[in-house]
């Protein structure tokens, strides 16, 4: 679940000045990247469709064809399932690129996920599972979330290997198959597959980070993701004795649910700030001159200024950064057209500010609804997420890659409002940084999970170079 960059315009991380021309892909590398991207977009890796293993095998084959030894390329089939998110026989891909001789340090873990969110052809203007190139974009489900990152990491490793690069520490890849649903793959990665992954020192997640440009081409900045909100799902359920629809009653499960949803729609959680978001807003306010900038300055000066936080939260570019947010995402109710409903429920998806207990949010939802007819339940047992400490080596490598490819783009630390596979690793003591190099035009390309998801064509190729540079810096020295 990728968070796409908030518009911003100031480097708050150490900028490294560089005047060197960015490396370029050869025509063969370019074509291989395109072919791999088209191939994986066209595989509908939605839960329940059993297609992730096919994609895992395809990506594994690309590694093997490039000379990665078969014994270090593992397709790991596993079952994913939960009562609410669906089931599938899926797979992860683990690749280990071993260091020459004695490794200098513990491995670096490169992360991503191969599954995508459901996309219904009738909701889209194009077939979501047939990649097309149009108006400077690649269209297709997964084009920014996140088959671009999968392809970029894979192609970067293939290119580096062909170019004779020899890592001085192991580079391990973990591409999971159920990040958008149950997250079983990353849990296994952080536990039973940890030996296979060589107990990495830290992780770089392509399902995070990334950059943006304003519609006029001005850089909005890139983010290095160091914290993320906790993902938690809740359900509002209403039961009723039902009956015949020719005799409507005052009590009706659907109306009770609709009323609860109206209350949720109007509610705002209390604003909160942490070190990452404070640094982020401090950077943002320096160039944000208008009312939004004023609100940021007011809020930084007085964290109890809830009105200022509300103004920030209402901005398209800052949604979710000032507090816990919950939103209704799914609805179900009734059993026949001509019967009063016996059951109605709504799924409520929450993104909880780091450090807040999801059980406390459940209690808050109960207070918001304050209707004994509406039962509030949790759909997972997720625990509050933790932040990863900023590492100078990762920060420097990320900043150099970004500023080589996109001179003038600022780099920010970021709290992601999404959740990702990083969480189980952070909980296990392995810091994870969302460090992808892809970019989009904000806000018009922010379509992850939505309709007509798309990626600027050049972003795909920039991302390959981005990962090549990152790996050279972090594993080549």
């Amino acid at each position, binding site marked *: 679940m990728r968070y796409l960059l908030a518009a911003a315009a100031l480097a708050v991380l150490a900028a490294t000045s560089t005047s060197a021309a960015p490396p370029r892909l050869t025509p063969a590398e370019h074509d291989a990247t395109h072919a791999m991207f088209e191939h994986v977009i066209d595989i509908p890796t939605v839960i329940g469709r059993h297609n992730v293993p096919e994609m895992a095998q395809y990506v594994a084959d690309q590694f093997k064809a490039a000379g990665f030894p078969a014994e270090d390329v593992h397709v790991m089939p596993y079952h994913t399932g939960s009562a609410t998110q669906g089931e599938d026989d899926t797979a992860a891909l683990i690749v280990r690129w071993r260091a020459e001789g004695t490794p200098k340090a513990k491995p670096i873990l490169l992360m991503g996920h191969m599954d995508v969110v459901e996309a219904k052809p009738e909701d889209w203007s194009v077939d979501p599972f047939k990649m097309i190139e149009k108006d400077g974009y690649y269209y297709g489900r997964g084009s920014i979330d996140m088959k671009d990152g999968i392809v970029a990491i894979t192609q970067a490793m293939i290119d580096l290997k062909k170019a004779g690069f020899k890592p001085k520490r192991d580079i391990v890849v973990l591409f999971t198959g159920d990040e958008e649903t149950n997250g079983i793959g990353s849990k296994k990665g952080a536990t039973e597959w940890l030996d296979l992954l060589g107990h990495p020192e830290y992780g770089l997640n392509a399902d995070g980070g990334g950059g943006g440009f304003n519609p006029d081409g001005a850089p909005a900045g890139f983010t290095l993701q160091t914290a993320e909100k906790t993902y938690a799902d809740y359900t509002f359920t209403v039961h009723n*004795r039902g009956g015949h629809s020719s005799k409507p009653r005052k009590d009706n499960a659907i109306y009770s649910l*609709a009323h609860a949803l109206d209350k949720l729609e109007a509610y705002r959680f209390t604003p909160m700030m942490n070190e990452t978001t404070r640094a982020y807003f401090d950077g943002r306010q320096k160039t944000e001159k208008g009312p939004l900038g004023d609100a940021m300055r007011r809020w930084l000066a007085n964290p109890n200024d809830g009105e200022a936080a509300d103004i920030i939260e209402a901005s398209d570019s800052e949604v979710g950064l000032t507090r816990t947010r919950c939103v209704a*995402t799914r609805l179900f109710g009734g059993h026949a057209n001509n019967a009063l409903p016996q059951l109605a429920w709504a799924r409520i998806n929450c993104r909880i500010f780091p450090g807040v207990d999801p059980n406390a949010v459940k209690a808050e939802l109960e207070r918001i609804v304050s209707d004994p007819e509406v039962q509030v339940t949790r759909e997972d047992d997720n625990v509050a997420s933790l932040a990863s400490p900023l590492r100078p080596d990762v920060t420097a490598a990320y900043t150099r890659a970004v500023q080589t490819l996109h001179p003038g783009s600022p780099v920010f630390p970021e709290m992601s409002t999404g959740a990702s596979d990083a969480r189980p690793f952070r909980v296990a003591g392995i810091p994870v940084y969302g460090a992808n190099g892809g970019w989009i035009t904000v806000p018009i390309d922010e379509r992850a999970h939505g309709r007509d998801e798309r990626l600027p064509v050049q972003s795909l190729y920039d991302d390959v170079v981005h990962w090549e540079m990152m790996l050279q810096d972090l594993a080549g020295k």
Partner: protein
Amino acid sequence: MKRAICLLFAAAVSTGAVAAVDPRTVPTQLPPAWQAKARAVFKQAIEIPSVHNRGQVPAVAKLLADQFRAAGIPDSDIHFMPYEALPGDQTEALIVRWRSPHATKKPMLILGHMDVVEAKRSDWKYDPFVFREEGGYFYGRGSSDMKNGDVGTTMAAVKLMSEGFKPDRDIIFFYSGDEETRGVGATLGSTKWRNLTDAEFGLNADGGCPSYDEQFRPLGCGISMAEKTFQTYFLTTHNPGGHSSRPRPDNAIYDLADALEKVRTYRFQPMQNEVTRAYFEERAKQEGNSPLGQEIRAWLANPNDGAAADAIEANPLEVGLTRTRCVATMLSGGHADNALPQSATATVNCRIFPGVQPPEVQAELQKLVGPNVEVKPDPEFIGVPTPASPLRPDVVAAVTAAIQKLDGPEMTVFPEMSTGASDGSFFRAQGIPVYDVDGSWGISPIDERAHGLDERIPVRAFYDDVVYWQMIYKALAG
């Protein structure tokens, strides 16, 4: 679609003349040997889950046909009529003709349906498709809507045949297989299959007529002669959607919730017609000086007295009788837990007052919810308003005699408008008057569970219904 049991406070409320005997404890008039036969067929019928799309209706048809065949109806007069209801739903109607050796009158048609509304095991206390007797009730989906009527009409005929009764007119039994969903069977039965079904009038076993209140006072028996038009609408909201970590100000689910809040509080214009006036005149007598009785009299005196109509409509006994009513019955929306919904849809089921055209109601709903909510009629079932059936003295006399023999003279019989729709509407539309007059009864409101949870019928009501139909056949075809 069974109409809910009609509710009526009998005159006894004011006179206090009726002894409060629990009708469930009164012995049935059906002999024990026939109780066992009827119960065995009922059990089999209930345990066939003849919900749409499950392909089980033909099994019910076979079960009923087997009873007729065993009683002596020749195969040439038993017709299995397969057809498609909802797209892909292969179902079947059963048409049986019990011939008169010396017919002197046009045939009489007996209507019923073999399909039932969906019932989910997880919603019910017990498996809805396992027949169960407990506490004086038979439980199971279809126990009151309307496998009771299927078995009652069939077993009454079987019993009369065994006793050598010869009708003086053909009695045609028509059991459809999609009354609860689409009504294709009744459409075909009233048109394409008319050579098999043509009759002077029809009696529909879909819906018990008498009822009692919880103090066991008889509430009367309404013969349904007119019915509201059934029409379902879909209310849909659309949105670009997006990632749920970044909620937008506009949201398809919230927009739909707002629309539903409007539907919840909206009230259509009150209306009266001849049947409902007759009904309310009877009710006014029974209610006497109760607040409800006064409101009814005020509304009868001045049909423009909207406040009186609202007060009547708000009474649980009279819901749906004063106007068009629409209610939300189903919901769906969104495509993933972690994505903002791109669309959300509510099913709104309307029961439209006779004479009002469904497109007028659609326009009214559209105006109510505003232009950002799409309002469309269910393309699977376009409601057609139907005329009221004329009051036939022979039918009223036969029903009254049978009901009062079983339920006592305090159980008054009167015309009413059904708030539900049934197969009868298709035949009414094609010129065959239909009267909804099953003889089974229940305690109101605790037994009103058609389409709902833990559907049930009092054991005695089921058995006495066989006796009721015997009396009806003898009175109208003997």
